């Protein structure tokens, strides 16, 4: 299996020599590195990307509670400011490493009591990563406005910024994402034949690798193709004809072959995944997800917990799965209007889902094996329109898991010293973090955030540099939150 995969990768590397797309961004080296990589792990880890589609307005998720900053916040967002006394205080260090970095105090949105409790508990599994966004290299307001520093393409555009977050290195039409590329590099770590990467939220750049080492499934099961012989009165002959038409190598057109390959991938993988989800002894993780009947994210994360459990309990097909990457998502974060009421619902679901995921794994002794992290198109403008906010840039993010060094704020700052720096909430003109129109300039790059996670996941330094070629533009490559 591994031998074949490596041979395939070697073939891809040769084929790529002629394709200009690979020469950009070092992808050719990446393909070669994947062909040569030889990772093996004795421990098990799972990385869970929780993508919040639409661009989460974290400036209403994590809000200052001290008088000075709250007044600024209230002034900058008059139509959508949260009430001060409703905020859920976070007991982060007041100064130094692990503090918000600006001497202020902060609280979660009132809909997030579950995550607040986890953030404030001893050995906290919840961390905040402050002011994260897409960057090629550090940029100040003057540099941004002067146009003197390279920037990611098409800031403020949903599709492009989703692609940048998920693909890093940048491209408007990324052929691969960093989740998929990690799986290319780590392929040798798993001796199981099942794909390393599972999306429970459809196709997107994050899951794309050069080898298609991924599987897209429904939130609570893998869809199977009904066997035609179960209703055919002449048993297996119809199945045989169906199989003959999908057999690889029988189609004369690339699109037909791609469709056949996708169909075969679907059939071969679904059965193993479904039997694992329903394996004997599977804990009743559903009880940790109160919204599981209607909440997409609850259903997805409950299934993720089950597949993690399967990999840790020698379930058929999962023996030898030492690394798994999951992609889950929820949407509705594009709060151009009616933001207050929309966010209350979104944050309540998010808080219960992420906390439920941690507690579910903790109940099975697996909490420290998985790290979940949020990602989103972009942050939103600090300024508002009449009852919402527009596409912005930087945002705050959450990391959740037993391996997370929680109860603290993480990130980078303009000086590049690798500690969190919550941005100023002053009005645009006097705000050093404001790009000019309410969009907040990131001080922490997506590459730093992602590389910290990838490093925990086991990627070596040279592979990190290949995965995130712009990482070298920042002083600190590891933010230390996990």
């Amino acid at each position, binding site marked *: 299996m591994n031998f074949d995969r490596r041979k395939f990768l070697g073939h891809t590397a040769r084929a790529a020599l002629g394709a200009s797309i690979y020469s950009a961004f070092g992808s050719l080296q990446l393909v070669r590195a994947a062909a040569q990589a030889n990772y093996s792990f004795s421990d098990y880890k799972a990385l869970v990307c929780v993508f919040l589609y639409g661009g989460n307005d974290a400036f209403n998720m994590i809000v200052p509670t001290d008088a000075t900053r709250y007044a600024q916040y209230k002034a900058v967002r008059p139509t959508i400011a949260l009430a001060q006394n409703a905020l859920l205080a976070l007991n982060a260090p007041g100064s130094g490493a692990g503090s918000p970095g600006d001497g202020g105090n902060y609280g979660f949105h009132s809909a997030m009591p579950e995550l607040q409790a986890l953030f404030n508990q001893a050995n906290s599994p919840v961390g905040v990563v402050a002011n994260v966004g897409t960057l090629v290299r550090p940029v100040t307001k003057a540099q941004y406005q002067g146009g003197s520093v390279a920037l990611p393409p098409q800031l403020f555009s949903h599709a492009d910024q989703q692609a940048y977050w998920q693909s890093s290195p940048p491209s408007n039409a990324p052929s691969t994402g960093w989740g998929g590329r990690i799986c290319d590099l780590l392929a040798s770590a798993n001796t199981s034949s099942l794909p390393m990467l599972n999306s429970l939220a459809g196709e997107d750049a994050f899951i794309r690798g050069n080898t298609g080492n991924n599987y897209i499934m429904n939130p609570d099961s893998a869809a199977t193709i009904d066997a035609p012989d179960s209703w055919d009165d002449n048993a297996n002959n119809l199945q045989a004809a169906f199989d003959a038409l999908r057999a690889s190598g029988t189609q004369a*057109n690339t699109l037909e072959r791609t469709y056949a390959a*996708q169909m075969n991938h679907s059939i071969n993988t679904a059965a193993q995944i479904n039997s694992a989800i329903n394996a004997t002894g599977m804990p009743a993780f559903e009880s940790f997800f109160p919204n599981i009947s209607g909440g997409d994210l609850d259903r997805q994360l409950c299934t993720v917990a089950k597949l993690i459990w399967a990999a840790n309990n020698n379930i058929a097909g999962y023996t030898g799965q030492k690394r798994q990457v999951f992609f889950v998502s929820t949407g509705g974060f594009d709060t151009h209007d009616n933001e207050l009421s929309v966010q209350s619902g979104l944050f309540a679901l998010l808080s219960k889902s992420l906390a439920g995921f941690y507690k579910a794994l903790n109940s099975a002794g697996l909490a420290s094996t998985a790290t979940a992290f949020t990602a989103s198109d972009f942050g939103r403008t600090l300024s508002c*329109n009449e009852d919402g906010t527009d596409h912005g840039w930087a945002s705050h993010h959450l990391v959740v898991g037993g391996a997370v060094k929680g109860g603290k704020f993480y990130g980078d700052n303009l000086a590049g010293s690798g500690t969190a720096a919550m941005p100023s909430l002053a009005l645009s003109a006097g705000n050093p973090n404001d790009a000019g129109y309410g969009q907040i300039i990131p001080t922490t790059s997506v590459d730093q955030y992602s590389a910290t996670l990838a490093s925990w996941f086991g990627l070596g330094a040279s592979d990190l540099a290949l995965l995130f070629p712009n990482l070298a533009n920042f002083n600190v490559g590891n933010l230390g939150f996990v």
Partner: protein
Amino acid sequence: MRRARRVLCKVVCCALLPGLAFGGATVAGNASPPRLPISPRPRPSSPPLPVAPSAPEASRFLAQATFGPTDADISHLQAVGYQVWLGEQFNAAPTRRMDYRNWVENTLHEEFTTDDMLEAWWLGALGGPDPADPSVIRRDQLRQRVAFALSEIFVVSTRTTLIDQFPNGQAYYYDVLVNDAFANYRQLLEDVTLSPAMGVYLNMLSNQRADSTKNIHPDENYAREVNQLFSVGLVLLNQDGTAQLVNGQPVPTYTQDTVKAFAHVFTGWNWSDCVPANHNDFSDCAVDWSTGANMQQPMAAFAAYHDNGTRAPDDLSNKQLLSYAGAANGGLLVDGGTPQNDLKFALDNIFNHPNVGPFIGRQLIQRLVTSNPSPAYVRRIAAVFNNNGLGVRGDLKSVVAAILLDDEARNGAGKYPDTFGKLREPLLRLSHIWRAMGAQHRCGNDTVRQSGSSSYTQHYANRPYRYAGWYSVWGTNYLFNQQPLYASSVFNFFRPGFIPPGEMTTKQLYGPEFQITTDSQIAEVTNDVLPRAMWLDIHDTCDSTDDYGDVAIDHQRDLALAGSGQGGPADPADRLVDAYNIRFMGGQMSAYMRTTLINYLNRIDHYWDNNGTQDWRIARIQRALYLIFTSPEYAIQK
């Protein structure tokens, strides 16, 4: 040389034939006359088209131009030829959603819901008798196919609650696409822009000038997407659709400042019956909750809320819109305009950008013909967009005709056998089997329903042309992840630049529809064929408890094709397979697939009579349909 001139004459002459007005679309309404850098007339590159296409050729054409070939349409197209067929289509009466809505509400006295909107969509897609008056035959297949393509470019989604709650607004919006499918792109752009559904979806409705006392600024959503998705795209294009490169890098079409300027222009529009003085804020004007009447009227302008650059300090003075060679006033919008005039300037500014032809033309090619058109094909279509031969820019009728008549559309499968074609969308697969197999609505009851304190009757009994039912029409999103006007975002079900992993990544081939072809969806699409092909038949006995009924096909129409004797190898399935090859696969079935099908189907003989309850030939028909519609070869329209 001489031959080339004759061909040129042929193209232009065709455009001028009476009743074939695909050169004649005018710029209607208050759109400006086209401001053109007049480019040379489109240069034809194709050999003359056959006057009488063969049956396989006709089938391939109809797969691109309709919701699926039928034997009758294939014969008709063979008889009249492409040009006459196009003329018929351009002149066919449009099937409008609002007419269906009026029938449901005024004749049936039912509430018009999003489900009814889907029924109306299927009426347009399937064509044939109109349920309101079966003597009226709906024949506007090309218009409906193009409108569906436009609905995947100018995306509005019923996933937005307010749009879902007002299906009359959906109907109005879809009718804009139907009405303008053969109109001028400039008209389409304006009608889309001012439609309340789009106003709600991308927040131009109730968008207002900046107010620093509230720290609010104009919403940028529509400003961004109208440029990025509906017109010019992110990077400057060559006329063949490839990106212009400077130092090896693409060049952005516009900047964030451009988006901001457009956002300031797109202010001051609201519900047509909004009376701002009656509200605290411009955004407090509301949909008419009782009737939804303002959902089917274009948005109206309110100058007091429009940023025309004159109210300091909040207005944006001297708005710089798209800047390009030939742009009116360099794309600079002078201060002091009305909402209407400023909108006109902005839409003209977008419309005349040289990117529009290749950007929109390429996507229409992808929706109708092939995922990977050659640059030369895109260039030919962009040239027609730029000038239809009569000096008109943006004539969609000519663009659609050029896309379908192009040599690459007609002969691409032979020239590029490895890469030509597109993955059939799930909705188009379903419309194909239904159209080609004589589908009708069957069963269902007339049921009294309570609505608050009053009651009404839902009419589903004996409605063969009212395409309804959970398994048929209302549930396609659950069945296979696609439903009209139900994209997950403004980026449609799939994006034009999606490249699937594997061989297509290696070859850098686009496959937009593969984006929704996930492991789970491909299973669902495949499973969906099973009952369609095997079980649901219009002759089946009804379940009396099924109030809504379902759509089913007519297997019996092909009995004569399926065999004439006792079946088995002595009465082989060749005729059936060969007929289905033409009907469903444009005659492009491989010899391997044909042999596989015939060898299997030949096993079926008169012993398969299901204890005397069924003609054995039905079994052949069912299984042939199942195998074809689940096969990778059929999945790609070529």
